[in-house]
């Protein structure tokens, strides 16, 4: 199996994702340059965090027109596993590979801290290693992580079990206090309707070793490996 990490100009968590896959998951991984039009041979593609194109215009707005995104779109249409983390999630929304939008945090400030997220769907390709309702400790670092969508979309997500992660407290209670950015229904991560594309604001690649504060990110990234192996 082979992972690919897309590099847009301004991506800055690409290296972190690369190291997490190579050194912790111990899986083959390569960078995919933003001008590449061929993503054959990859089983899972990661759109990493950062400030692609400097967040010019709107976060993710320019990246979604990058040459590589055509190939990424086709890859997803064919069922390839695609995960967008933070800026990657913003790009997925702009590219309409997942529904909804990420608007500025309700605090109007950048926020970097460890948060707790509850696994809302533990049967997906990105959470199969998780127990139902498991609480994971994973960091966020964003200015625009406030998930928003219209009521029909929200209903579709909730009714079809497409919410992947929700902000919660240490005990798993989904409360307003535990919501760091104002996201609707404390949504931290979602799936597309087919279940092969995931977008999430928290950074699992930052929580892969105890020395970094938590290794809970392995539950997410490791699920991808587990599902690809089977």
């Amino acid at each position, binding site marked *: 199996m082979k992972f690919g990490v897309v590099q847009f100009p301004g991506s800055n968590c690409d290296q*972190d994702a690369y190291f997490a896959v190579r050194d912790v998951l111990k899986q083959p991984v390569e960078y995919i340059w933003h001008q590449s039009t061929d993503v054959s041979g990859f089983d899972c593609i990661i759109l990493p965090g950062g400030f692609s194109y400097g967040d010019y215009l709107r976060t993710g707005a320019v990246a979604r027109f990058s040459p590589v995104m055509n190939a990424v779109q086709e890859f997803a249409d064919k069922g390839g596993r695609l995960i967008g983390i933070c800026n990657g999630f913003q790009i997925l929304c702009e590219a309409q590979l997942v529904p909804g939008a990420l608007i500025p945090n309700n605090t109007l400030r950048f926020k970097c801290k460890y948060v707790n997220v509850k696994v809302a769907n533990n049967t997906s390709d990105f959470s199969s290693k998780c127990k139902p309702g498991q609480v994971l400790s994973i960091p966020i670092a964003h200015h625009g992580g406030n998930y928003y969508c219209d009521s029909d979309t929200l209903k579709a997500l909730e009714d079809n079990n497409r919410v992947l992660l929700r902000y919660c407290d240490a005990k798993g209670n989904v409360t307003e206090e535990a919501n760091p950015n104002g996201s609707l229904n404390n949504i931290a991560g979602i799936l597309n309707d087919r279940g092969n594309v995931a977008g999430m604001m928290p950074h699992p690649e930052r929580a*892969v070793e105890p020395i970094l504060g938590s290794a809970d990110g392995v539950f997410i990234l490791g699920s991808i490996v587990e599902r690809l192996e089977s």
Partner: protein
Amino acid sequence: MPITNTEPIDPKVYHEMGLNDEEYKEITRVLGRHPTYTEVGMYAVMWSEHCGYKYSRPILRLFKKYREAIDGAGLENAGIIDIGDGLGIVMKMESHNHPSAVEPFQGAATGVGGILRDIFTMGARPIACLNSLRFGPLDDPRNRYLFEHVVGGIGFYGNCVGVPTVGGEVYFEDCYSGNCLVNAMAIGIMKHEDVAYAAAHGPGNPVLLVGSRTGRDGIHGATFASVELTEESENRKSNVQMGDPFCEKLLIEATLEALKTGHVVGIQDMGAAGITCSTCETSAKAGTGMRIDVKKVPVRETHMTPYEIMLSESQERMLAIVDKGHEDEVMAVFKKWGLQAVVVGEVTDDGLVHVYDGDDLVAQVPAKSLADEAPTYYLETEEPAYLAGLQNYDLSNIPEPTDYNEALLKILGAPTIASKRWVYEQYDHMVQTNTAVLPGSDAAVLRIRGSKKAVAVVTDCNGRYCYLDPFVGAQIAVAEAARNLACSGARPAGTTDCLNFGNPEKPECFWQFKRAVEGLAEACELFNAPVISGNVSLYNETPDGSIYPTPAIGMLGIIDDAEKRCTSEFKDAGDVIILISGLRYDSGEKHSVCELESIGGSEYLKTIHGIVAGRPPMLDMSREKHVHDAVLKGIDKGVIKSAHDCADGGLAIALAESCIQGGIGADVKLTANCAPAASLFAETQSRIIVSATPDNLGALREIVDDCKAECTVLGKTGGHDMRITINDVEVVNVPVTDLESCYQNSIPNMMA
């Protein structure tokens, strides 16, 4: 064809640029004629204090490495610390005080940008930023505005560029009200063999300008940094540069990749004095000259004059000297990353910088004269008249607080002491996945990927101490930095500094500067943490007065085994709390600590009594070292579970912080001959509070004895309250939740 027939420049013009009559005369002597307008502009910026160090050079010679560099090897953009495994750490700190005082967001942002460029121009990948900030009190809306936007600017730049901002400090004092201090520090890592130099070797080699286009921003930024701030400084907003962190991120990747081609002969970033500085400094270093054509410089505004192009401080630009014949290869790397890269000239062998505007020669100046030969001034020093009175202020009649709990909470909630979480949550402190100890502990710790090691890094300086005694205050800054590193399990390896002072032309200010540097130089040698790089920021004053002398220290230490890093919070209930100190705390002792436990210069004296007076606490550097040795050994042997230094606010505050961060109470019993306020709040030096399991107490005592430090059991962790008794009388009893709420909410409440 040399320049001839130049007219004298109107003194009003060159005075406005910052040159005095003697300097102008010297320029005419060097050139053998009057300078052109472009030339006088180039001299004005290069000979400003900010670039030329003309006032500070005689004092900086006190630093051993600076002396060696100036006399021989030459100053590089930043110094290198060897951390073993073939790796070197590059570290530097720089001020952006004046720009931040008038345009805080961009001033702070470009401060970060500038210091990062100093790191990667040496071939090192930036791995962390820290910042040391000072503002006036937050009850003044202007200070809240500056604080909010400086923090915003640092976050804006650091987060986008992908370098974690992992630590620093923020102080609030009246003296910084008109003149905030923004000192940005960065560290980078590289293999020793990959180091890049800033010298323009090889006549005939092409000179490239890479990165952003050049605009009119920041012209005379260097001059602006070399004068006092006044009301009309607001009009200097155009002297503030604008930053583009996205461009800088591309520049980092492109520069590091270009260096790998092996064909970059020399490279220098463009900061203060832009193209003028990078051309003359790289030439001077190599003993060569340079010819450039400003018409080739990519510009972003129309009708820019040669003067404007040479003086522009537009950000995110580098000057690269490349092996002849390989310029296309190097430029291709920059173009791959979407950056401008053009050949603007070539290296020559005549030691002169020739600036052309197409076919017109507009400047012809000896590189060394611009870069190295700014006149040196030997300014007068005079001990300030007020100082003796201040130091000898009678503190024996300061009334005790009626309620120690209330006093404790008031100090804990003082913005200088209170939690800075509001600040650091706005910084991405985790990107690059190397941060092993996050903000909130005594030092940030970064693991070194591919090795067992980690590095710990801090900034420190108590400006108030330096005001009361610049020599001792500066030494305490160094001691405190090393102490914080020890608490993390790191032994000091190197120091950088950012020396912030008032107007050097005032003898009292220059005296403060000289005394502080004397203190620093001695202390850094004693702690084996030599000053490897630094920055001087003078003229930090307004009509209302000068800032406290503030020699900010940045220090880096090495932890041999990253797994042995230590943090400041109490870990478990039932642990023993021990004070490791330089002085002995038994109440029966002949030389009672109490005589030396002075509240002079303390946060307690200022916050509770509104007094800034006395002498800073006494510092015995060899005892301080013994304490560090004991703590380092205790951490290495695995008998110390937490370590936190006593600093601002004294013992009670340090205990409170360890309780708050650990979410555990403490029961502490002190015995003392002095007044309770002194026991609780005096900022006696060389003290570290550690915790250990009861079983390990014996082993710890042995280690402390071996290291010739003192060991006093203070009490035990546990429960939900922090309780302190002195001579069996309870003085403090506060629920940890109350301590926490006061500590965490202070700044957010003021900034709401």
